[in-house]
């Protein structure tokens, strides 16, 4: 506050013992402050900034922007904000098998027989008077209608997190404001749990009612596809259909399609060379390697712009006159390789035993195998 009075922009600060405080004011109304613990290596400014963005979007999603920007009664707002806690906690406790919170890309799962699922979804959404439909398995997008993909990637990530937070219930009718598409007018997000772990949802207007949609539409469109849905559920951590064969040394991977803002992350629990990290640890390592790489080397356009604007202290990255396209890291647990092309980014996790010189050809081959699926 002192700084802004003097026309000085202060964007973050670090404590003596390594804690970090980051803040941002949204729409001149709400200031969000994120404080990280003392171990700054684990949580960097990049993550905290994404966290602030995500939390603001959570608040808009549930309450709408009007209530946040034109605050008439602070006490009432505080009470209403409690509605967002579950979603916000979803971001604060983010870990494990999804990375949308840091990648801002939609976590996807590549199913077998996508065409059938896509057809069913399109027909189902049409019958539910909606152009926005999405099928999720284990909280990852398997198929979505064309309009759904046209939503801002952050919104899609947010909706996915929301759907994940709804857990084991059979159906939901949830009013949502889309932070970018429709921040003032709420839509209804209807969600139906077809099988435990497989959900279909649509964004719609006043009709149909939840009950009518459930009774008349769910069984009609999805019962014939139960077998395929079970097959998708069985993919679990793998997230890739059996037809995609990867090199035996790939422990886990994250593939980002930079154009469509979609991502596939896969951890192969069947691959277990001696000394390899556990499945849970592999998810964690993928996440850490992604954050490390994006911070240092694969600086994304939006981040680069913000860095210029807000003059962060990442001089190392700013000092580059070129954009690195490959990087690798060797740790005691495993070896990692990152690779980017104009369309894709690939992050690979491999066992320590793989020779370092073999990482690059292995990554190139994995990328071509994955892109051959048409993702």
């Amino acid at each position, binding site marked *: 506050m002192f700084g802004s009075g003097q026309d000085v922009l202060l964007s973050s600060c670090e404590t003596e013992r390594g804690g970090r405080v980051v803040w941002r004011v949204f729409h001149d109304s709400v200031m969000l402050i994120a404080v990280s613990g003392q171990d700054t290596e684990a949580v960097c400014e990049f993550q905290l900034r994404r966290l602030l963005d995500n939390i603001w979007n959570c608040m808009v999603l549930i309450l709408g922007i009007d209530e946040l920007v034109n605050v008439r009664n602070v006490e009432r707002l505080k009470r209403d904000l409690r509605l967002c806690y579950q979603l916000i906690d979803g971001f604060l406790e983010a870990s494990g098998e999804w990375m949308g919170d840091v990648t801002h890309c939609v976590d996807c799962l590549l199913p077998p027989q996508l065409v059938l699922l896509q057809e069913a979804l399109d027909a189902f959404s049409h019958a539910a008077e909606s152009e926005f439909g999405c099928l999720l398995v284990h909280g990852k997008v398997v198929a979505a209608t064309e309009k759904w993909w046209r939503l801002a990637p952050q919104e899609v990530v947010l909706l996915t997190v929301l759907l994940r937070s709804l857990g084991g219930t059979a*159906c939901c*009718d*949830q009013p949502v404001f889309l932070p970018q598409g429709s921040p003032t007018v709420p839509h209804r*997000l209807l969600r139906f749990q*077809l099988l435990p772990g497989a959900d279909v949802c649509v964004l719609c207007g006043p009709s149909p009612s*939840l009950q009518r949609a459930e*009774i008349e539409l769910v069984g009609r469109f999805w019962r014939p596809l139960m077998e395929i849905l079970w097959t998708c559920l069985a993919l679990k951590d793998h997230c890739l259909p059996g037809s995609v064969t990867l090199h035996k040394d790939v422990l886990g991977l994250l593939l980002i399609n930079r154009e469509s803002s979609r991502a596939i992350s896969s951890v192969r629990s069947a691959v277990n060379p001696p000394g390899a990290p556990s499945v849970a640890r592999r998810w964690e390592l993928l996440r850490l390697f992604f954050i490390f790489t994006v911070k240092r080397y694969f600086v994304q356009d939006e981040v680069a712009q913000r860095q210029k604007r807000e003059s962060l202290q990442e001089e190392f990255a700013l000092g580059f006159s070129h954009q690195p396209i490959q990087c690798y890291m060797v740790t005691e647990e495993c070896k990692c390789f990152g690779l980017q092309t104009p369309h894709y980014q690939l992050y690979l996790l491999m066992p320590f035993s793989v020779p370092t010189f073999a990482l690059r050809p292995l990554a190139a081959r994995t990328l071509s195998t994955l892109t051959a699926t048409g993702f």
Partner: protein
Amino acid sequence: MFSEPLGGDVEQTRAAASYWIRRRKQGRVLCQNEATLISVKCGWNREQGGAGEWARCMLGAACSWPPTCCELMARSLRPGSLVHVDWHRSAEAKEFFSRLQHKKKRRKFGLLEAPVMPPSISVDTVNYKVFISGKSAVGKTTLAARLAGLDVPRMHYETTGIETTVVFWPVKLRDSGRVLFFRFQFWDCGENSLRRFDHLLPSCKEQMDAILFLFSFIDHASFVDLSSQIARGTGASDNIVKVVVGTKFDLFMHTDVTEEEVRSFQAASGIPVFRVGGDVCGGWGEVAPLLNALAELLWHQDRLAAGKMPPQPSSRGETGDLAGC
């Protein structure tokens, strides 16, 4: 077969048939054989009636039985007079309850699923919509999770919109000895969201069969609020089952509502009161009293709405259709 012929009271039988057909159209009754169920529920001989014929001509006809009469009769229902309340403990029930479990935990069913019985046993499923009403933080979501055997949320979060939970519960009827799967769909909606969005309450109340009014034993205001809740939750002509549930009964050290108050409320309103609370250990015993009572009241109401009590079958059906009866 059944003793009562179609000629007894044609109008009544028609109304009864139309009631069940309507419920089937609403997706409320899922049965192996439509004609069988209609005939069983209406106490009506299939050969004589030709239920398929009725099904075609009776669609959309309204049920004409005065609700006031139904309500009076609902009040007089003695617990355990229609269903076997301790049946879940019997050896016969094991076969059914084992279908609701997976690795010693409650099995979760998606909307496309239902308990699968061996082909030799055919069991019909009846579907009911139950709305859970109560003040914020009274324990609506927790009650739904408890009844479904899901993990009870460890932190309190306000529900933001409507969430529904499905619970399957097998019940053995006293008069026919039939076993039915009751499929309860509990509708739970956060109070704050109800206030913010007008469309949620009508959606919850659309075609509901029963309503659970919740109060918390550690919050006296929620108990006082019951009568206004009941007035708000149900219209004067509504023909729905009402049950009151007191939550957080385990926190008796802090209890704010006395037994005496609960007793006098129950006597004055004629609405049964149940108590829940404590850790969920997953046994059937902890949910059986409420689910059995709910099943019984709903079954009773359906039979009243269909216009008559089914007569006792003079003999068990010999046809294959009635194998599950």
